[in-house]
């Protein structure tokens, strides 16, 4: 029998600390959906999404009700569309985006990821057509999310693609001026993109995955923050070292992950689809008390971005992984602490107050998941500068054998210090200044590739 005090702790965790399952994502292979024409391919894709996905939302709802743990997002990730639709032109890819969007709407999921290509070694006509289709496709659809993998530790970084994507990000934002450039928030650029990540915008069902799989993203900044506060209150700050606090984070991460593992397995059983991984990412929401930034403050910096912030993020990220990996049968995806600025109230406030700047965010992403995420920058920043920011972030991933990502929103017509709101889980933020904009064009215009790193002489 579980002790009463443990039960009361857990009830508090669920009721007051925002414990939820952030995402249940059904990964689905679409390689067998290719038809002779665009139309036939679209029909097959929709039929397959319906066949595997129709039960996802009702099943998640029923289990959320049974276990009284909310499942915030129900999503699908599909085979990168550049693989499925190679040979299609731009119009063909736009038609496929609509087909994905319609099928996603029909089965009631929140997002569908996989309007994607891997161009780490070079661009194919298919990946070019997909990238060219992106501004129209992402503005005209609501649920489709896009991602491009531009590099890896093994193959280096495709700078030509980054140049193109710098322009694409601008085009995405400029094509959606009424929503603050929101189309750019549905697109993310990766190095070392995982094949099993349940989080948007970067979820894909990579090659080598089974026909269908259920992956789960857990929640938790609120739970971790409250656990730390309780520990500090009980023991007193002077009695605790950082190792004690790391241990507390580990325990809380274990519990959060277990709840996700349980829900994921139950969903998978009910749908008769194999269970894949739990992504033990600490993903914040704009809700008060569900912030990674808040954890940084609890762990001792009065302003987020102050010296010490990077060390704290490193400690947090590692403790979350340690706690989560024992809790789950298999951990995968991005797994770490996210610092998506707009989606995290405390981080957004730190940007507004000027304590958190782009360069510090970049430093923090070298020790945590996942990258420069959901950062609103001035709409006037040029494409070459955006490409150079992407390049900086991608090499952090390449050199350190980790996943890094960039999701920037150059908000049309807004300048540093202005404010933008995207609504819902996407949150809001002040526009972050980009210092030294317009100084990187010569570097970017070299294009070509940044070679893969050597794996000895590690310094």
């Amino acid at each position, binding site marked *: 029998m579980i002790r*009463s005090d443990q039960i*009361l702790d857990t009830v508090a965790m*669920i009721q007051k600390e925002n414990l939820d399952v952030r995402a249940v994502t059904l990964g689905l292979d679409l390689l067998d959906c290719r038809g002779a024409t665009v139309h036939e391919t679209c029909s097959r894709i929709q039929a397959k999404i319906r066949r595997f996905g129709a039960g996802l939302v009702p099943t998640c709802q029923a289990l959320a*009700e*049974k276990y009284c743990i909310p499942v915030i997002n129900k999503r699908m990730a599909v085979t990168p569309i550049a693989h499925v639709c190679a040979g299609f032109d731009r119009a063909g890819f736009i038609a496929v985006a609509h087909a994905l969007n319609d099928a996603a709407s029909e089965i009631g999921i929140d997002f569908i990821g996989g309007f994607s290509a891997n161009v780490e070694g070079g661009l194919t006509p298919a990946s070019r057509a997909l990238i060219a289709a992106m501004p129209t496709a992402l503005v005209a659809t609501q649920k489709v999310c896009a991602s491009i993998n531009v590099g890896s530790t093994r193959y280096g970084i495709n700078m030509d693609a980054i140049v193109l994507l710098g322009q694409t990000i601008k085009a995405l934002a400029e094509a959606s001026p009424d929503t603050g450039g929101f189309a750019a928030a549905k697109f993310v650029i990766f190095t070392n993109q995982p094949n099993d990540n349940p989080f948007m915008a970067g979820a894909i069902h990579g090659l080598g995955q089974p026909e269908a799989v259920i992956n789960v993203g857990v929640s938790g900044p609120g739970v971790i923050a409250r656990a730390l506060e309780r520990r500090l209150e009980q023991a007193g700050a002077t009695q605790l070292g950082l190792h004690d606090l790391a241990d507390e984070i580990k325990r809380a991460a274990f519990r959060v992950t277990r709840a996700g593992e349980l829900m994921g*397995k139950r969903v998978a059983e009910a749908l008769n689809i194999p269970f894949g991984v739990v992504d033990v990412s600490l993903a914040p929401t704009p809700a008060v008390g569900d912030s990674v930034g808040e954890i940084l403050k609890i762990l001792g910096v009065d302003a987020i971005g102050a010296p010490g912030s990077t060390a704290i993020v490193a400690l947090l990220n590692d403790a979350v992984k340690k706690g989560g990996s024992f809790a789950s049968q298999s951990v995968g995806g991005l797994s770490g602490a996210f610092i998506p600025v707009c989606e995290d109230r405390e981080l957004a406030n730190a940007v507004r107050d000027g304590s958190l700047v782009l360069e510090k965010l970049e430093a923090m992403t070298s020790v945590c998941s996942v990258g420069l995420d959901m950062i609103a920058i001035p709409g006037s920043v040029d494409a070459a500068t955006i490409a150079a920011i992407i390049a900086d972030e991608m090499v952090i991933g390449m050199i350190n054998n980790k996943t890094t990502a960039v999701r920037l929103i150059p908000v049309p017509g807004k300048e540093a210090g202005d404010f933008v709101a995207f609504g819902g889980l996407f949150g809001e933020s002040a526009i972050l200044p980009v210092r030294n904009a317009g100084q990187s064009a010569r570097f970017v215009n070299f294009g070509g590739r940044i070679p893969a790193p050597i794996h000895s002489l590690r310094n």
Partner: protein
Amino acid sequence: MATNQFVISIMSSDRVGIVSDVASQISALQGDIADLSQTVLRGYFTMILMATFPEATTTAAIKAQLTAISAPDAPALEVTVLPVGASALREEAVAPENIYILTASGGDRIGFVATVASFCAKNAINIRDLATSVSAGQYSMVLQVDLSRCASVRSIQRELKLFAQQHEIQLVLQHNDIFQAIHEINMPG
């Protein structure tokens, strides 16, 4: 050998050696202990057990044997002995599916437990295990409950919410698997 089954309950202020004394006396009567549960609450010992005895053993004989237990400075044990029909020994298995944990907390008052228990009774919720505690004027109850007689969890949750508002008690119903997953090394099956 034909046997008779009895349920025996013991209550006493707590001291070292009660279980040893009771078990020895049952053995002396050739009794075989099956299920047993004991707990100590604020210095008071209580135990309930099932045992089988040779057919000739009477209720009075068992009670006499156990009441005779003595220890220096300790009063005799309060003993109740009841013969049990075979039908009552059926173990009623509840599917893990239907086991939930209900927690109730609120300001300490007369009738707190009665209020919560009346909700359970009215809604066909069977209480399998219950522990309560008071701390700083806050009363907390943790109940393991069986919902197999209830129509749907959704309707229970709705009723619970209404009831909680009416009575100013915080009531939370969660599936038992959640607690097992979060607090035990093994995942629920």
